[in-house]
């Protein structure tokens, strides 16, 4: 089984420096791209490979790039931004790539910037990723010295400057347009779409924002081709994916596996099954903003379309397990509290609804909840529905809430009728 993204990452060891990275074929793809391929060729290749964005939404990367205007002068400057603001609860896959192989990301970014003809690129990094920041800065330094960044890269005439921006730490900055506002030094509130960033992005210029894992793929696809990439997955989507498991399992962690493996495989073979004494009750398959899946879904294949068909989302592919010794109401309260605190405060349903939800959940958990809260929670979950809110923050928050109310209804009722939490 191929593991292109993590092949050169060894937990516990420092990341490859430039020399080591080159020894294992690093920057060959960049040379190939700059010497033999036009920007349009690369975009076509990525389109053909059907690389879907790994940040959570699964938008086709090549399509995103192809929206960028390619006329020579009028659209300049253009920007490429790497979304490394990994703040989805339970998600730590980008961190693994950032700390483990920064040159892989940098090479991918140079090729991507070349494809859209961007002259400036930013890595918008989660504030807490101090180790990743140090590694990135060192790697960028090396890349500049070796002529992979800066003016006239490898004699191609292509110029690129790459900057690391360590963010101030808001969940909403993971939303690409809020990220752009934040990067411009403005309040991190999402922007109106359309226009999409490809037309008017950072500083009003054409911009592509891609996730760390997405950009880390680029050099591999350029080197090995679209068919190779498609062949890596067990389903039609293409590629491997970094999956992760957290919660009461024997071996929590993150692994690179083909898209399309089942939840059961992930849980049993890679995470080592539930810790002894704990039983599986459910999982948020792709981070906190995805719907619960339960035991009935253990054979669902982990891919964008199949998880969606089961009523949830693949999201970031890193699941959080709910066990039988954790109160589901408390679990959901914890999640919703996070979303309420991270709301940017721009639109009404999110700003006003999430704190209400949080208060009702806490009240139920504390044994002071009322039966009508169950209807009010469902009402709010619907109130947060897509299209009702300005961005996807509240709809994301609605997912664990609405599915939790469905799958753990009896637990909610028991809290209210018994006026206490039986897990306490």
């Amino acid at each position, binding site marked *: 089984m191929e593991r292109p993204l993590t092949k050169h990452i060894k937990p516990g060891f420092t990341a490859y420096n430039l020399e080591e990275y080159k020894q294992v074929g690093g920057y060959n793809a960049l040379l190939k791209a700059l010497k033999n391929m036009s920007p349009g060729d690369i975009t076509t290749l990525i389109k053909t490979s059907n690389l879907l964005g790994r940040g959570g939404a699964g938008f086709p990367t090549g399509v995103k790039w192809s929206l960028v205007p390619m006329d020579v002068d009028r659209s300049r400057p253009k920007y490429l931004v790497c979304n490394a603001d990994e703040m989805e609860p339970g998600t730590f896959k980008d961190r693994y790539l950032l700390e483990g192989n920064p040159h892989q990301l940098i090479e991918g970014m140079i090729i991507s910037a070349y494809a859209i003809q961007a002259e400036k690129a930013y890595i918008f990094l989660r504030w807490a990723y101090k180790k990743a920041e140090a590694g990135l800065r060192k790697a960028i330094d090396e890349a500049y010295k070796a002529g992979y960044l800066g003016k006239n890269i490898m004699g191609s005439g292509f110029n690129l400057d790459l900057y690391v921006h360590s963010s101030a730490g*808001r969940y909403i900055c993971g939303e690409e347009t809020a990220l752009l506002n934040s990067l411009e030094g403005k*309040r991190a509130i999402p*922007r*109106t779409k*359309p*226009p999409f960033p490809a*037309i*008017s992005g950072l*500083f*009003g210029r054409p911009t592509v924002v891609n996730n760390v894992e997405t950009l880390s793929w680029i050099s591999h696809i350029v080197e090995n081709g679209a068919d190779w990439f498609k062949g890596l997955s067990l389903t039609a989507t293409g590629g491997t994916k970094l999956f992760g498991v957290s919660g009461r399992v024997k071996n929590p962690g993150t692994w690179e596996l083909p898209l399309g493996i089942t939840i059961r495989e992930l849980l049993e073979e890679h995470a080592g099954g539930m810790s002894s004494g704990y039983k599986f009750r459910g999982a948020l398959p792709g981070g906190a903003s995805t719907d619960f899946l339960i035991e009935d879904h253990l054979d669902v294949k982990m891919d964008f379309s199949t998880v969606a068909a089961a009523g949830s989302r693949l999201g970031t592919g890193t699941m959080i397990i709910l066990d039988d010794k954790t109160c589901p109401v408390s679990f959901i309260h914890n999640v919703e509290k996070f979303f*309420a*605190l*991270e*709301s*940017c*405060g*721009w*639109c*009404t*349903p999110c*700003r*006003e*609804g*999430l*704190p*209400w939800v949080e*208060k009702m959940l806490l*009240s139920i958990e504390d044994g002071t909840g009322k039966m*009508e809260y169950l209807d*009010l929670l469902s*009402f709010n979950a619907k*109130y947060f*529905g897509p*299209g*009702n*809110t*300005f961005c996807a923050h509240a709809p994301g928050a609605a997912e664990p809430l609405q599915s939790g109310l469905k799958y753990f209804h009896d637990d909610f009722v028991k809290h209210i009728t018994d006026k206490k939490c039986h897990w306490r």
Partner: protein
Amino acid sequence: MIKILIDGKYYEVKPEKNLLETCLALGIDIPHFCFHPALGSVGACRLCAVKKFRDKDDTKGRIVMSCMEPVTEGLIVSVEDPDAKAFRASVIEGLMTNHPHDCPVCDEGGECHLQDMTIMTGHNYRRFDFPKRTYNNQDLGPFISHEMNRCIQCYRCVRFYRDYAGGKDLNVFASRNQVYFGRHEDGTLENAFSGNLVEVCPTGVFTDKTLKMHFTRKWDLSNAPSVCVHCSVGCNTIISERYGSLRRIMSRYNGAVNGYFICDRGRFGYEFVNDEHRIKTSQIRLGKESKLQPVENEHIFASLTDSFSANKKIVGIGSPRASLESNFALMTLTGKENFYHGISRKEFLLTRKVSDFLQHSGVISPSLKQMAGADAILVLGEDLVNTAPMIALTLRQAARNLSDAEAKKKGIPLWNDAPVRELAQDTKNPLFIASPFSDSLDEIAEDTFHSQYSDIAELGLMISERLDKKAPDTKSGGNDLLKLAEKIARHLKEAKNPLIISGVSSGDESIINASLNITTALLSFGSDVMLSMVFPECNSMGLALIPGNSFEDIAGLNGTNEIDTLVILENDLYRRADEELVNELFRISKHIIVLDHLPNKTVLRADVILPAATFAGSEGTMINNEGRAQRFYKALDAENQVKESWKWLTDLIKIRNGEVKWIRFDEIVGFLADDLLIFSKLKNYNPGSDFRMLNAKMPRQTMRYSGRTAINANISVSEHKLPEDIDSPLAFSMEGIPENPPSSLVPFYWTPGWNSVQAMYNYLEETNGSLKGGDPGIRLFEPGKKGENIYFKQETKSIEIKKDEWKIVPAFQIFGSDELSSTGAAISKRIKKPFVLMNQEDADILKIKSDDRVELEIGKIRINVEVIIDKGVVKGLAGLSVNLPGMPFISMPCYGKFHKL
């Protein structure tokens, strides 16, 4: 036009608007908060949700925000859809979770957009049963009261204050349901348009602090359409009365003039009307040495018979702050040969020169709306932020024209505010400012040039020379100046709608000549150039259009000729000329009659004082700087002996000629129009006093006006006869049709369901368009043929740097330089002490620091002023605050010496 389907009904609509404003213009009520027609859409509040259907077979549809929905051919939507209605109610429910429901003690109650929207969506039952979030409030200064708990986070305040008006000290802080709108700490809101927050805020977070001092609910106010008297722009206002005092001023929409907004001087400058020192009784002095004493009307008229007999020489001095009709009545009394303008000779010559040019050169004298469309702008010598704030605000919008064009190219509709601004970033229209001091407009300028007047004029002349070879030669300035002149000339030449702005407040003819020459040069090749000239006062232009000379030219002032009777109309001559000259005028006048509102130095010299109604108690016409005649109406009924100056003057004419020339306002306007050709259009441009809607006058009061039978109960329990108003079609009553009066007669905004100012949608043709029936006011002159104009020859010479003397130029102040507004309590708190601006180098020479006090000697005048170091001021130049309370008249520019104290 395109066709769209709303709730099963087809409408023909314009494609460039969004769905929300389209529906509002069609009279379809859609609740909303964050959308404001001047600010565009941002999709924050989510209240304007409607259902959109893919096609006719789509029965499910999806919820969209109407403010973010472009109107496209074949669009199918439903406002009445049950899902959309339920969602709108749930948005209100969300907002109400924290709203304090303190309507009974909230100043906004009764004209609250939040109340209206809550009722419109049908939300009424509270299901949120947790404690509410609370905030601390701030002291935001004398104008605005702050009550954050009422906030519904629509973001309109910061979008207006920061994005629209360029303010810096109001912001949104924190996030989630803790977002806070205020300053970083307590303190006065600095922006000159802060008062608009009162109208922009959909609820009671920002309310009018001056109204709070004598609070009255909207429904208990008696209102009238008026025009601001505090600068020459002539913004339209709604003035409101209760119990005989003026309670507040709000903006009155005029699509061609001020749009939705007014400045803080206009909104809060009204307090002089209620001043405890107001002259409300006639007073007479029975001998030169005796004191003034109150007198009944009959006795006054009897005592004046002699002063007005046919053989007496009567001289009248008019005023740029009095109405056209009052000035005309005075001219009728004295005859044209004895009517003088109550302004300095210098100001007279400059205003006359400018008004002649505007009428006859073929240039466009633009409205604010036209100015907003300018694509290259040059400001020459005028400090707009302080002398014509609304023009400054308009330039901020004009600055966006270039980026608007970019947005259009990218397919972003202009109502989609955030993306338009994100795309634009700092792109600005070419705006060039050449003036003595830096101000807040500098930040949106492409280039600024701060220097003394002669240099500014030199720059102007260089520009005109570069535009037209026939323009007078200039001596070659420095290389940088030359480059700047070339750049400005190029932009003005290439622009479709270039705009030159200058004014007479500099008091410097070279600046005026330079701006007229640039205009002439642009006209010489057929440019559609606009020239906006700022005048010192609200009716300066009106006065300039009336024959006569400056009162400094009164024959005999330096001789022995005596004046039998001198009549001074609403004017403190000591603000107009040197004290000695005015004293001399009074010395040669045997009998002095003064009509005014408040005691001042001139009033104290009167033998007879006649109490003149203020704008709030008068009907009249004023001509703004554009040349637009605008009618204002009274909200205050006559009180004691107070009446309009033109009515007093009518009485005096009767004493003199034995004839009653006119009784009603319409009649004096008729005489005016017949007598002076320039005013011939004034005859029938507004509905006359006999105009009726369904046989009734337009009510000044709302239908819910309370206490009519009780207001005078402490005096007499019988119901008083309603005051009559023979001069206008407005009634001092709630009877009549309150909805949709003619556009010039809007006393307040109200339509069923809309009690807040947002009711104005129903008065407009379309959002940001004209009022239904056309914007009020009539332009007295239109640009004629672009004739060959003559260039003004102008020598410029740099200031001689004299060893101990500084060139003193006027530094106008939005708060303080205007006479009437300065007496109010709120404005007073914003007025600085008299000051001079100078640069660090000069201060070092004088060995003084910022905040030091120095004595300034100008001729015989010596005044104490505070020093403010301003790095924008060039060496050898000092800016002296103009006309602040306690300052004498000083004719600037001039030279002065500083003495350390």
